[in-house]
């Protein structure tokens, strides 16, 4: 049975999405349950695959339609994709369970379509992580983008315009990636990643492959919201509903970073990316600008969700800069940061979802006195904030630690300075929020001004915690931050260490 796991992890969510869309027309309770069951099943599949890959040490290969290597499409589950699969399925399951009330409030008679798109988004991400074929990755990238546009498009009054700009830039990014695959195809004649990795080192000097690398990377940088082309991210994530941001914020940019690592390491082998080419310096510089820009503009935001979006842009700078340092420490720091950052962003956006659910408002001033009212949620939020800042027990510290030591080993002091500067700015950001939430008295419901359709349960200082089914998944997410932190040593030694090819010093 475990032979079919790579197929089952994506076929079951796909079939479940079809049943969800269909049952949405019959009764409104079934779609949510089918979606949660399917996502939990794929989470179990991912964990089983991770265990099998780590214990046996060899990558699982699955030939779709029974055709070998370059002729058909092959799924390859190695250490790197197994751990990212676990992260994707865990984040999407947890977010769906946590935001049940938001779904009923926002999508009251369209549950079928919403849950189907939710599951299709996750299935697309799973496929993108596991695929071993360059063109199949483009098709799955389009599924993820299209369902992402739909999930974001139904948000606040300004959401359609923000989504349209996201659509334009997303299409440019995806089409540049397609162009890159085309240039690879014209130079090598094949689409299978493993075979590309054998052909590319033979003709390293050809300009077509150089241009394929440049255009592929540009496309991915556009999808990742790196500095010059990041304009769409803050608008799109702040205007969408908290359910959609809870799913899209922690996953899209991280999986795109994973694809960049997959392409730079598996397709264009490390000898080509770091040895033959000398653009790593420029890209690390670009990452530094992204980090500084993301952190500084996060300071200037009053809206909590916009602030978190700019922090995501800075985190993308961490990962891209860490990877292009070129040494083993930097790359393992970048991979560890994919895992940690997904967990941190999920915790932060779940917390933001709970605040918006409770206070109705999205600005910083709405957090007044929440420590007294909602101690557990604030405890989780403090944990997530400390993890973003990088305080030891939490996971944020350890990935930053690897990134900084990688930067020192690579002698890139500017990158190390940017990391430290960004950590300090994050500290200012989050302690400013804690201070508002802790010291300022809880503003009563009437003095809140008009907040549309808010669910304020104002009144005395009695503890008014978030509803239990939103709180428990959020606390699970915050506790995983500490668990990830404590086990980051074991994660690096027996998973990430094998993910990086031996050619990298």
């Amino acid at each position, binding site marked *: 049975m475990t032979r079919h796991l790579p197929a089952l992890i994506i076929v079951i969510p796909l079939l479940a999405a079809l049943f969800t869309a269909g049952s949405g027309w019959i009764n409104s309770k079934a779609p949510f349950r089918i979606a949660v069951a399917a996502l939990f099943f794929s989470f179990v599949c991912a964990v089983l695959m991770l265990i099998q890959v780590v214990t046996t040490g060899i990558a699982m290969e699955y030939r779709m339609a029974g055709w070998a290597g370059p002729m058909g499409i092959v799924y390859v589950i190695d250490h790197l994709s197994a751990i990212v699969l676990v992260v994707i399925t865990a984040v999407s399951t947890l977010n769906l369970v946590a935001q049940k009330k938001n779904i009923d409030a926002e999508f009251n008679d369209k549950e079928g379509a919403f849950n189907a798109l939710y599951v299709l988004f996750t299935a697309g991400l799973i496929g993108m992580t596991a695929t071993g074929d360059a*063109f199949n990755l483009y*098709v799955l990238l*389009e599924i993820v983008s*299209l369902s992402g*546009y*739909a999930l974001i*498009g139904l948000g606040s*009054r*300004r959401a*359609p*315009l923000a*989504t*349209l700009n996201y*659509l*334009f830039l997303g*299409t*440019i990014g995806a*089409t540049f990636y*397609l*162009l890159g695959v*085309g240039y690879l*195809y*014209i130079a090598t004649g094949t*689409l299978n990643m493993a075979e590309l990795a054998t052909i590319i080192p033979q003709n390293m000097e050809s300009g077509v492959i150089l241009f394929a690398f440049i255009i592929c990377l540009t496309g991915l940088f556009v999808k990742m919201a790196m500095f010059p082309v990041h304009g769409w991210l803050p608008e799109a994530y702040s205007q969408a509903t908290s359910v959609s941001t809870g799913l899209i914020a922690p996953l899209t940019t991280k999986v795109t970073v994973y694809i960049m690592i997959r392409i730079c390491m598996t397709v264009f082998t490390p000898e080509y990316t770091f040895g033959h080419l000398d653009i790593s310096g420029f890209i690390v510089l670009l990452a530094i600008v992204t980090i500084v820009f993301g952190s500084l503009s996060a300071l200037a935001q009053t809206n909590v969700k916009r602030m978190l979006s700019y922090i995501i842009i800075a985190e993308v700078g961490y990962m891209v800069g860490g990877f292009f340092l070129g040494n083993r420490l930097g790359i393992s720091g970048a991979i560890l940061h994919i895992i940690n950052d997904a967990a941190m962003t999920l915790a932060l956006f779940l917390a933001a979802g709970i605040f918006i659910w409770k206070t109705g408002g999205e600005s910083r001033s709405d957090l007044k006195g929440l420590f007294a009212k909602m101690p557990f949620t604030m405890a989780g939020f403090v944990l997530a904030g400390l993890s973003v800042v990088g305080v030891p027990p939490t996971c944020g510290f350890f990935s930053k630690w690897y990134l900084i030591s990688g930067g020192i080993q690579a002698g890139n002091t500017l990158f190390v300075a940017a990391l430290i500067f960004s950590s300090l700015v994050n500290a200012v950001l989050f302690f400013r929020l804690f201070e508002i939430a802790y010291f300022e008295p809880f503003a009563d419901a009437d003095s809140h001004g008009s907040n549309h359709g808010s669910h304020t349960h104002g009144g005395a200082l009695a503890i008014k915690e978030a509803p239990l089914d939103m709180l428990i998944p959020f606390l699970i997410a915050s506790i995983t931050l500490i668990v990830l932190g404590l086990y980051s040593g074991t994660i690096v030694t027996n998973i990430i260490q094998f993910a990086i090819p031996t050619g990298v010093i």
Partner: protein
Amino acid sequence: MRDSDMESIFALVLAKANYVVYIILMMVGLYAMIVKNNLIKKIVGMSIFQTAIILFYVSIGCKRGATIPILVHHASPEAAAHGAEKIAAHAMEAVDVAHYINPLPHVLMLTAIVVGVATLGVALALAIKVYNTYGTVEEDEINQQLRSG
């Protein structure tokens, strides 16, 4: 001598003509998406941008002097009656690869065209929603409304 090098110049121009046209179309599409003010014009530019890539892929697959990628098989009725082994026997005569155009880029481009229409449908749905919210599809008028709050 004169008409033969004339011929070779034309052959060279033709050889690169497809790739030059695909680049021009891509730049036209990119220009419309970035510079145009009207949202529907940007969507039209996006559609042109996506179809330009298809021109690139299909011209990779071309082979001089080859026919369409459908195997010429004079499947006479009795061949169909014999079923698989006749077809298998027929296939034994070596199918000359140079006679047929590469089928792989065509398969990829079926996907790209369909993805282009799917993106076009979603983009137009969003444009209609923007029009219902702001009453206009011009980017600068919308920004004016946003700034005036």
